[in-house]
């Protein structure tokens, strides 16, 4: 300890321990962390982008089949999940706010609520998957089976095409949700230990960015997958 460091306030001293050795100061470290997450989210957009492109191309090729297949999804559960996720984004934002203002108790509470909502989403999703598995509507060769009536111009193959896009996209999204829950669990642990202060809370902010991104992906998925065929008379 040099003489200069002895005069640091408690908070500054705390921040100094969170500063990794290769950064010059907290500002630089925070900037790096935030930029890193944004760059990561860009790669995520490209990752989902491949699937969205596939979706667009096959939807253009098989408009009717996609509408029919889409109407077999339960849009009410989808809407419920949308509401759950939007609320979780709000609670996540509040958790970040309380991290910034240094209210540890509220921060932990809102992180826990966010986790709860995330888990709710996954449970609802699980029920939806369960129903599809029961009906053999999972597009795996040998398992897939479709015996519901199809309107003219629609073949079971094209319905299967929709279903694999549905499972690939929602499955990938669910995987991101699970990772997000893991990150939140770590945040709760460290928040409990009092790691985050108004000076050092970059991990909470960065995880918040990730959580919002995962929500936004769902905001795109819900109308594209669930609402596409809701107007059809033979929808459920």
């Amino acid at each position, binding site marked *: 300890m040099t003489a200069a460091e002895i005069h640091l306030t408690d908070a500054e001293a705390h921040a100094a321990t969170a500063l990794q050795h290769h950064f010059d100061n907290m500002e630089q470290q925070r900037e790096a962390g935030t930029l890193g997450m944004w760059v990561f989210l860009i790669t995520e957009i490209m990752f989902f982008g491949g699937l969205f492109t596939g979706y667009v191309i096959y939807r253009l090729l098989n408009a009717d089949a996609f509408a029919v297949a889409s109407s077999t999804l339960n849009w009410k559960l989808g809407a419920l999940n949308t509401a759950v996720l939007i609320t979780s984004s709000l609670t996540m934002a509040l958790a970040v706010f309380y991290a910034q203002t240094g209210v540890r108790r509220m921060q932990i509470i809102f992180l826990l609520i966010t986790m709860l909502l995330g888990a709710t989403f996954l449970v609802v999703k699980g029920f939806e998957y369960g129903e599809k598995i029961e009906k053999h509507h999972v597009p795996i*060769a040998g398992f897939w089976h479709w015996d519901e009536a199809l309107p003219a*111009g629609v073949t079971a193959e094209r319905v299967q095409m929709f279903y694999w896009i549905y499972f690939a996209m929602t499955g990938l999204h669910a995987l991101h949700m699970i990772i997000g829950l893991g990150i939140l669990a770590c945040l709760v642990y460290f928040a409990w230990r009092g790691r985050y202060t108004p000076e050092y809370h970059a991990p909470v902010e960065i995880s918040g960015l990730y959580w919002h991104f995962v929500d936004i992906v769902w905001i795109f998925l819900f109308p594209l997958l669930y609402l596409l065929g809701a107007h059809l008379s033979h929808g459920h």
Partner: protein
Amino acid sequence: MQIPLPKIDLPRLPFTPEQASSTAGHVDALYLYLVAITLFFSVLVAGLIFYFAVKYRRRTPDEIPRPIAGSLPLETMWTVIPLLIAMTIFVWGASLYFALYRPPRDAVEIFVVGKQWMWKFQHTEGQREINELHVPVGAKVKLTMTTEDVIHSLAVPAFRIRSDVVPGRYTYVWFQATKPGRYYLFCTEYCGTNHSGMGGYVVVQEQKEYQAWLAGGANESPAAQGEKLFQSLGCASCHKMDVQGRGPMLAGLFGKPQKMEDGQEVVADEAYIRESILDPQAKRVLGFGSVQMPSFRGQVTEEQLLDLIAYIRSLSAPPGAGGGTINTAAPGNGNTSGIAPDTQRMNPLSPTAPRGPQGAQNTNTNTQGSNRPPQ
């Protein structure tokens, strides 16, 4: 639209294949232009590097040359001039591309089906060949191609043509042979174990020889075989010739736009007919929305599909048209395949034929149906 190419008479260059088609000379001319550009710039850059490296070699260990920041005029020059040169290549290359991939209307059609690891050809007159294609000199020939399994690519270097052959769709390429001879024919899209053995020859013959060859192993024309199939598969019970049956009438349909149930308009071309046979529910003609035509997927081979298309097209052909005439003069001799059993020997690369069990192990010919979901 066909873009006419100017006449070019170029002698055969060293290290090039024979020029045996009407477009080969044009490709060689562009090649010559590109080689000249490459030589010019390579020699320029290499020459400057050598000159500078010698002239400005380090003379004393601690000399420090005067810095030169750059020069906007120079940068502009070597951005704009290469760009202009590149544009000339682009225009030349693109016009040639259109000429190579737009078959002329009066071309004779030959059906090509690729299959691991052989090429099957079928002439309008009915002859079938494997790995060897006979064409008369001077005739414009259009190849309508598809494959039974993976992607292949048909290339004839002497004609400077090539086109991929893609499962589930038809691709086209055309040529006009100008010189009798035997020219290599290759598969150039990697297609599995015996990829390098999937080749043969294009045999260009004088008209008289070609006629003699044609007479040698006459078969039914694709259209005639298609008609037989049309009867035996029971198509005719719904698609009637003179009266409206349960399905649309097919006479005069080919090449015309058709109104669909969902309002769109589709031209009844090869791809559409193919889809309608394999996947009848995909596009349904207006007024036939409730008809449940069964799918013929798994029941007809790619070659039979081409025969059916030829037949349906013949129903629309004006009398005497070149493309899809029915050659009823040569009744079938029972051998519908028309394939000589030892055609593999025609393969110029016969040393590569699989010589042991290992070589042949990779023949997973499970292409049809088994993975299809129940309907």
